[in-house]
């Protein structure tokens, strides 16, 4: 077993274990902390995949922004925290069966697939390549601009929705 495989198992176990924590934690704040740990594990996987930019972006966007937004929302709606609710709804067994079926299908597909060994090393300047692809008119320039418009629209929408009248 090589070092990479060991690291893969460590980060995979972190993200999956934390994922279980997210869906089972009784307190919502704990679920959010588990979610952050899951994000961290996934960031480790990105490092193993030689995509360091995405690992840092994972920390930056998911932990630094989305995680904080979620915790803020939990605190803003914290009247809910005191009440004792069953954390799962009545269809939990159905959802469990559905998720298990999905998992079985995915695993079967992944196992059968005609996957080959990695197709060569990551280029030295893969980050610069990504940047050029994102702003290249023949590449992703239009989706890139649309994505930025989407972000602006989403932020304005969010502000409008929560604004007190």
């Amino acid at each position, binding site marked *: 077993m090589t070092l990479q495989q060991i690291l893969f198992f460590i980060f995979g176990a972190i993200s999956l274990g934390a994922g279980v924590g997210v869906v089972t934690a009784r307190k*919502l704040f704990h679920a959010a902390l588990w979610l952050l740990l899951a994000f961290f594990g996934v960031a480790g996987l990105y490092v193993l995949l030689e995509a360091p930019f995405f690992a840092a972006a994972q920390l930056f966007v998911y932990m630094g922004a989305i995680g904080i937004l979620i915790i803020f929302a939990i605190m803003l709606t914290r009247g809910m925290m005191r009440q004792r609710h069953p954390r799962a709804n009545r269809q939990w067994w159905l959802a469990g069966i559905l998720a298990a079926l999905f998992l079985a299908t995915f695993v079967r597909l*992944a196992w059968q697939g005609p996957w080959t060994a*990695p197709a060569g090393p990551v*280029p030295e300047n893969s980050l610069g390549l*990504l940047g050029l692809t*994102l702003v290249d008119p023949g590449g992703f320039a239009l989706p890139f601009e649309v994505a930025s418009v989407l972000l602006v629209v989403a932020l304005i929408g969010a502000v409008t929705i929560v604004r007190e009248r």
Partner: protein
Amino acid sequence: MMVPLQWYLILSAALFCLGLYGALVRRNGIAILMGVELMLNAVNVNLLAFWRYTEPAAATGQAFAAFVYVVAAAEVAVGLALVVATYRTHGTVVLEDIDLLKG
């Protein structure tokens, strides 16, 4: 690169199914959003794994992963805004209790 691609795919499948289960099962709106975030993360692992194993010289897979980030940020901003607004008007974030249209 000693880790086979299958491992990444199976891991991301497991993460996706956990997120799916969470999104279907939880009653709190914020917890459902957390499940959706897990699913988006699983998708991103898949995208980057395929990028690394099939075509690392092109940046297409990375570009898609970047767009998933944008979508996730937009989704969580609007979703949480809706949850907070619902809490203001209805006093609850349990989505089953929000049944104004049920008649």
